[in-house]
């Protein structure tokens, strides 16, 4: 039997994709379904099964949120606060840095390397270095405050300052990525637009608000979606910057993923942890949809 060219192409296509198809079914989609399944069971990871308990895990999470000093409530409210503090500060700082970098010619590469270096560094190493910088007496930051006559700060040691302190580290680590993307975006804006606007008598402020910002809008949406997802998934920094990796002091820094890890892999309450991951998934989905709807609405060029 002779196959037509098109038939042979189909066979080649499926041959090329065969391993990937198996991978996506077995390593991605099956585990996704299993994750929902786990959340409805009293799952035992070593048996790979567990009795069906319906919504009991979710109910337990709901009841836990009502308890005083509840880890779950702290985890969800902290996670939202990380996003609300982290994403806007990261985007505003990154855009400012990118605009400054666009002004200069010399040493531009040196600055880009400096801003990007933390992004390629392991979050665990970053967590340790900043913990050392934040130390109450021997830490460099408090030494510097002392030098200029300001009172020393507890940073990660106080329930009030710990979360903003860790957010600052996350911004420090992630900002380089946003700077590079913003800079690339600025370079794609045709210089003609600026020249034309200048001929019409626009000042630099107007150029920024009327040309730069609107044309960067797709990039702002892209970075805020990516940024939000990464702050919602915060784990390594928090675990390695808090005593015994528990998201303290007084649960003031714990996150959803940290609670998933602790419930699932320290207490082996897999069903409960599984239900938390499903809630995290729904939270990510919801926030992403809201962002895509509301922020991208303004792109009408």
């Amino acid at each position: 039997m002779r196959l037509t060219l098109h038939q042979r192409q189909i066979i080649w296509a499926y041959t090329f994709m065969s391993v990937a198809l198996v991978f996506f079914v077995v390593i991605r989609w099956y585990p996704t379904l299993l994750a929902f399944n786990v959340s409805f069971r009293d799952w035992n990871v070593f048996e790979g099964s567990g009795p069906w308990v319906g919504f009991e895990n979710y109910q337990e999470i709901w009841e836990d949120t009502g308890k005083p000093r509840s880890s779950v409530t702290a985890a969800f409210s902290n996670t939202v606060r990380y996003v609300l503090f982290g994403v806007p500060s990261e985007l505003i700082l990154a855009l400012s840095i990118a605009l400054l970098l666009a002004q200069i010619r010399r040493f531009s590469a040196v600055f880009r390397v400096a801003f990007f270096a933390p992004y390629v560094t392991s979050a665990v190493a970053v967590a340790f270095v900043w913990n050392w910088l934040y130390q109450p007496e021997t830490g460099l930051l408090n030494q510097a405050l002392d030098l200029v006559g300001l009172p020393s700060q507890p940073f990660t040691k106080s329930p009030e300052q710990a979360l903003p302190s860790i957010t600052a580290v996350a911004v420090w680590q992630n900002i380089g990525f946003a700077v590079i993307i913003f800079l690339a975006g600025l370079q794609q804006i045709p210089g003609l637009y600026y020249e034309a606007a200048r001929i019409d008598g626009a000042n630099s402020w107007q150029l920024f608000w009327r040309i730069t910002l609107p044309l960067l809008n797709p990039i702002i949406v892209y970075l805020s979606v990516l940024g939000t997802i990464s702050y919602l998934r915060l784990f390594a920094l928090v675990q390695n910057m808090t005593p015994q990796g528990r998201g303290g002091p007084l649960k003031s820094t714990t996150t959803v993923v940290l609670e998933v890890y602790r419930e699932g892999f320290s207490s082996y309450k897999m069903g409960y942890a599984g239900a938390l991951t499903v809630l995290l998934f729904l939270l990510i989905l919801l926030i992403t949809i809201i962002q895509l709807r509301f922020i991208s609405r303004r792109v009408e060029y």
Partner: protein
Amino acid sequence: MSTSVEIGNEAALPIAEQFAPARGEGRRPFGWTVGIAYFLLALGGICMVTPFLWMILTSVKPAPELVNFSFFPENPTLQNYANVLNTSSFERWYLNSIFVAAISTACVVFFDTLVGYTLNKFEFPGKNIIFIGMLGTLMIPTEMLIIPWYTMSVNWNWHVGYAQYWGIAFPGVITAAGIFLMRQFFDGVPNELLDAARMDGMNEFGIWWRIAAPLVKPAIAALAIFNFIGNWNAYLWPLILANSREFYTLPVGLSFFRGESTTHWERIMTAASLASIPLLIVFLIFQRQIIKGIALTGLKG
């Protein structure tokens, strides 16, 4: 790569010129705005570099020097490095990290490129479903899959002995994001070229391997670099899967220094330096390509 990017670049003036003062305002060679830009960037640059510098400086200080404040070590020593290397398994963790990152990067480069090519250049029934099926996995956070993956690993004994290498690597051997990136880059490869090779009797695998893939080498290099960095720094999954010290990757091994935080900061900074300096050196060597690659792939995504 694709024509749209080239057109964008042609139309754009060099970035510094877009933001230079307009002709009417006079063209000073070194205006005060540029001076302020350099000043602010230098300030930011110091904030980015100081933590790294402080990490390295602390690592070469003898323990007693940590309490009396001096920025530079008075008696620099490499004793901390000898101590940390003698009392931990850092050499093994380096090998593990290199091995795991290399396996997953090799697989990602091969499969993501092949599947991206197939999705771009072939017509076959079920293409849309497969496309959406792969794209859809991007919405699922990996945190939701860790309990199912762990269950599967226990089931198939990937959490013991040398199988742990595969256990750590398997979730990342094919990536949806990489497939879509490569699919877009193959737009730049003209179909006529592939047809000509077909006329000459080359088989489809040969056409991909010898003609199409070499044309997108820069994109493949970017994909490989990001995957390597991502896998090298991966934390949550290796932490869960690796159950014996000899199979920790660098970030996981490093995280166990957390317990020493109250006493031995010089040891912790030494460990952090050991874990982060190799990749920082790689980054410094390839900084141009890496930053260019980030900008290129980030804008495509």
